[in-house]
């Protein structure tokens, strides 16, 4: 394992920027998955809603069409899923996640694209 003997600071030191607390995506138990058929900006093709972007405490959701989630840092807190007015965001167990953009839990209802 790589050690920290050569690290340039004697104590803890953080610069502003994503991920200074580590790749917090590994903390996640459930993954938020956006259904673009229900998501307002995706559906309308216009800048609208973005309540998920506004509420995300870790700023990992982009203000884009459709919104994109940065899974490197998303801790899976589910606030976006709770706040989404169209219920476009589903929390999927990471254990059921195939890693190919399709959630096993969603398969019964047909594949859902994931951003």
């Amino acid at each position, binding site marked *: 394992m790589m050690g*920290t003997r050569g690290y340039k600071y*004697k104590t803890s030191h953080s610069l502003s920027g994503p991920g200074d607390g*580590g790749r917090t995506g590994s903390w996640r138990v459930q993954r938020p998955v956006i259904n673009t058929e229900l998501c307002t900006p995706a559906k309308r093709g216009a800048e609208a809603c973005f309540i998920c972007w506004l509420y995300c405490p870790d700023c990992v959701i982009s203000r884009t069409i459709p919104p994109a989630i940065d899974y490197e840092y998303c801790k899976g807190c589910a606030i976006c899923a709770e706040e989404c007015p169209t219920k476009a965001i589903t929390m999927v167990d990471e254990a059921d996640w195939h890693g190919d953009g399709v959630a096993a839990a969603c398969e019964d209802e047909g594949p859902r694209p994931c951003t």
Partner: protein
Amino acid sequence: MHVIDNGNVAAALGVKLAGVQVVAAYPITPQTPLTEKLSEFIEAGEMRAQYIPVESEHSALAACIAASSTGARAFTATSANGLLYMHEQIHWAAGARLPIVMCVVNRAVGAPWCIWNDHQDSISQRDTGWIQMYACDHQQIIDGVLKAFSLAEATSIPVMLCYDGYLLSHTYMPFEVPEEKKVARFLKPFKPSYALDPDNPANLNTVTLPDIRMDVTGEMAHGYMEIRYLLQEDLRAALSVAQDIEDEFAQIFGRGGNALLEPYRCDDADYVVVGIGSLTYQLRDVVETLRAEGLKLGVLGVRLYRPFPDQALADALQHARGVFVIEKALSYGYEGALCSDVKAALYGQAADGRPGDGPGNDRLPYVKGLIAGIGGRDIRTADLTDILRAGITATPGGRNAGTLEKASDWIGIKL
């Protein structure tokens, strides 16, 4: 320049000479005249520094931590309950590796309120990660402030320079004020290894996880345990750094010599009394008296208490048959902290085999811990002489072996 003044003024003159840029302190007896003198220097324009008036000792050290984080040379001073009120920030300053210097003018800790001298205040802070130096006279105070800044900045570890309340802080003694030109040679301007920069904002001493982690630039950063290990490693290395600085000081100023211990007639001593601070100079009179009676006593003053000079101490005691540790503080519920440290240092040496004795501890000296001067109880030289004379003759193998344990461990107790 040769002057006659009190110990607090000696400290203030040292702080002025050290080119301190920020002073934040809260008055507490017997430290008050030190910080009053500093505020006078600054008000009169004799010292180009910022004096930050604060509402508490906790804030005083917090202000110094902030100042030091920006790369300023920072100083504070306190005593007793003021020191304890700082306690959380004392740990913080060490963990943050800031080379702050603080004078601790030693005073008893309440309750009950007691303004007189003992060492309970600073000894109780021994585990905070600060370097602790103890001065025995005014020359060691004024020189000590300069050495403390040099040591703090060389190691990125804060330093407490401790000296006895009243016995040193308020008594007048002659001492030499170091020449400014020589000070400039000895103490270079403070160049911090890291300083806050408004153009490159950063968070310092943020939450660290139990394990190491990647920082924002992708470099593997320390976890809490690595940061604390490095503090311990650098503290142990500070033993030799302190001696190097002492040697450099002696070369420039022509005085000083041993940064760790100050032995007096220990070379041929059968018995050695170990202590801290001005008491060890008082004990020199006892050494003279008892040597005149044929009892070979020496005194070993501990100048640097943390990091503890265990190896040097064990070496200095290697021929002693009996060791007396007299201290003005104790770890309540056990014994004097210095006494435990001395025993541990000797045990470490015994495990390695005492020189000339072969392995084993059969030749370890008898160690007797004594408590004196708690809350400023007068320590009379005559009493010290009587106690040590009795102690030496009662040491196992001595004339009155077996009577030693019956004597009180607290010198001068009147129960």
